[in-house]
């Protein structure tokens, strides 16, 4: 009469979170708090120059030293968190939305939609990622806006491929057939039945992608294509400090560590999510 199920066990059984998920969330949470509270946390303004105190090493007054304009490195790193988090989020969000939409439509509708989407995807993938991004930014003119556009135009392919593959598997699942037999429209089947079940690998990949985008954003800023000086952005800071590397190492080192820690936060989150959701990126 009775069948045992997992849920028949005591309801109090709490869900254990993977330690990597907790560590990643904590690290990212820290940077989000810093980004929000930069105005209060930073001892100086990010653009505040003091030409009498240039290139000073770490001290009580300037914990992480000052740069060649006498700007406080710590304050610039704290304010830079805003820009770098913004790059990570927006640089992933647009490709994520576009890619999932295209993957969903191509996978479910098939036929011409699929053929056109897949050829477009192959053309995009035929170019090296970085070269294509730099080319688009060069055409649009340097700046963060161009960076986001370039990432959206190039980055969607990964999401589209992941989600399309999932949709192709799931669309023959019985619950999708059941939804169609119930007379639900194509949009409803895609939106409510397919997407929530197909999106998991894309979500996990988005976290990995955020790492790449943070590094890419910094690298492009370093090359002068992303955030423009004097903006407080970690890549810009490294670029500006490069010529003083031998005499004033702190100008480059600390923003570099900031980039590494933010990237690690996303990376841990990706691994933790993959474990929690039962998929590997």
């Amino acid at each position, binding site marked *: *009469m009775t069948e*045992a*199920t997992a849920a028949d066990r005591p309801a109090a059984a709490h869900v254990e979170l993977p330690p990597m998920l907790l560590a990643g969330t904590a690290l990212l949470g820290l940077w989000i708090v810093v980004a929000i509270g930069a105005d209060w946390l930073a001892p100086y303004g990010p653009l505040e120059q003091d030409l009498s105190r240039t290139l000073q090493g770490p001290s009580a007054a300037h914990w992480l030293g000052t740069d060649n304009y006498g700007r406080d490195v710590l304050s610039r790193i704290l304010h830079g968190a805003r820009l770098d988090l913004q790059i990570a989020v927006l640089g992933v969000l647009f490709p994520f939305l576009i890619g999932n939409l295209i993957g969903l439509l191509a996978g479910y509708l098939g036929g011409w939609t699929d053929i056109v989407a897949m050829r477009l995807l192959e053309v995009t993938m035929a170019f090296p990622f970085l070269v294509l991004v730099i080319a688009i930014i060069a055409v649009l003119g340097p700046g963060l806006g161009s960076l986001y556009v370039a990432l959206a135009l190039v980055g969607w392919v990964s999401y589209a491929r992941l989600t399309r593959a999932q949709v192709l598997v799931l669309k023959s699942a019985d619950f999708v057939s059941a939804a169609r037999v119930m007379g639900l429209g194509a949009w409803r089947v895609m939106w409510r039945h397919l997407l929530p079940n197909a999106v998991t690998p894309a979500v996990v990949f988005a976290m990995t992608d955020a790492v790449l985008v943070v590094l890419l954003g910094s690298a492009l800023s370093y090359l002068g294509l992303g955030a423009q000086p004097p903006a407080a952005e970690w890549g810009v800071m490294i670029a500006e400090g490069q010529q003083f590397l031998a005499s004033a190492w702190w100008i480059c080192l600390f923003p570099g560590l900031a980039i590494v820690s933010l990237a690690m936060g996303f990376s841990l989150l990706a691994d933790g999510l993959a474990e929690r959701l039962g998929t590997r990126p």
Partner: protein
Amino acid sequence: MNELLTVAGLAIDVLTREGPRALVRDVGFRLNRGEALGLVGESGSGKTLTCRALVRLLPSACRVVAGKVTLSGAGDLLAMDERALTEVRGRRVAMIFQNPTSHLDPVMRIGEQIAEGLILHQGLDRSVARRRSIELLDEVGIADPAHTVDAWPHQLSGGMRQRAMIAAALACEPDLLIADEPTTALDVTIQAQIIDLLRRLRGTHGLAVILVSHDLALVGDFCERVAVMRAGRIVEAGETAAILAHPRHPYTRELIGSQPRLVPPGHYFPVSGAPAERAPRVKLGGGAPLLEVADLVVTFQRPRRVLDLVRRRPATYVRAVDRVGFALASGDALGIVGESGSGKSTLARAIVGLVTPSAGAIRLVGDERETPRYRRVQMIFQDPLSALNPRLSVAQTLTEPLIVHRLCRRAEVATRVAALMAEVGLDPALAHRRPRQLSGGQCQRVGIARALALSPAILIADEPTSALDVTIQAQILNLLIRLRAERQLALILISHDLEVVRRVCERVIVMRHGRVVEEGPAERIFAAPQAGYTRELLAAIPGTRGFSGGTPLAWQGVA
């Protein structure tokens, strides 16, 4: 002296995060040379784990915590080191599995897989081993063994693969063969062939067999002794004939009572060992016509390989459904019977509109604009878990069709959902569970409730119970029988299980290779089958020996 295997006090734990949990407790039995023992129980009863423990092939999270397994001439298998155990496995004890596909190495030729054991255990050289492999393939009834020996596993059918696995298992002339659900994945006629083969091999090799199965009828046919397992313990054991005739434990009675062949037509299936109750009578004949299928053809294009395109070979097509026609009136119960590949599921999918027919007509009576197709015909699926969206709770699943098709006002949705759940016998407390937190039977009830939400006139059930245990199968079939009477539903029941169809439906269609082989009243088809294929199907049903002491007697025994 004559004793081959003794198992005593076997206990197995699984290690979980909350600590060890008991899966098997105090299991003991004896097996003589040449004897067959049936291990019967439902999924999760521990029968497979017990067998795997005998050859120490448990999943890594499981541990044997107590017990002794003594094989005559080898000592305690549980205390043996791995090297000595390798000698026992294959040479003394062999095992075959439910799914031959996943237990044959896909990148090794059939002959090599058989020869492997011969070379390892008997030290034969390659050419001798190959000759012996061909002999073995011949012995297990594979036509043209000289060619099959060089075939890859994917080139063989399911039944052939199972034969090949048996040949590999028997290569070293073991004393004991452990067969874990060897025919569950196979069609009924193939099952009969495999069981015949095992019976013959027992005779020629003096082989002892442990047959693990959920199918009591099959065990009744094949085994002299049977042990019934439940929740990790043996609840009853003894001579098969005695246990089938006079079961003592209530669970054994329930198991026997749930066998469709023991239920008189027009009755509910007995649940919890209670006698079969008469189902409410359904007025037969003269119902308003609902559905007419005429000369229906569904074709699929065979996948084309690149080479075909290069050589400009025309695309080839398969007729999954080939000129099928029938009519259905309100209150009818029509059974569609056939083996895998017979086109019965494709037929169902065409009726509900999931597959587009290539020719012929499906006429649903009534105005499409007034009552669209989904309000007239609904479907229940084979795998109850995969038929539910894993992200939606029971309540959400049942709410969706009501809201989307505006079948009731928003304020009434909650009461409608509760009423639907009550109608299919679901505990209201389950409303917020997700499919993974439900049992198979509960999932199937949700699937039925979802179909009923649209109040269809026709309900198509595609193998609704083949993924479920036999006692749960009885409950789900009872639900369908009751709903049919209460809602005046026209039911189309698709099944490979003739006994189930016979109990539920008055009319039966037998399909093979997409065509209708025979059609008529269920009782007539079972009593006097006309087509050769139908006779073959009926003869293949297990249970001809075990329950043969006169069926009426057996179902009185249940009561």
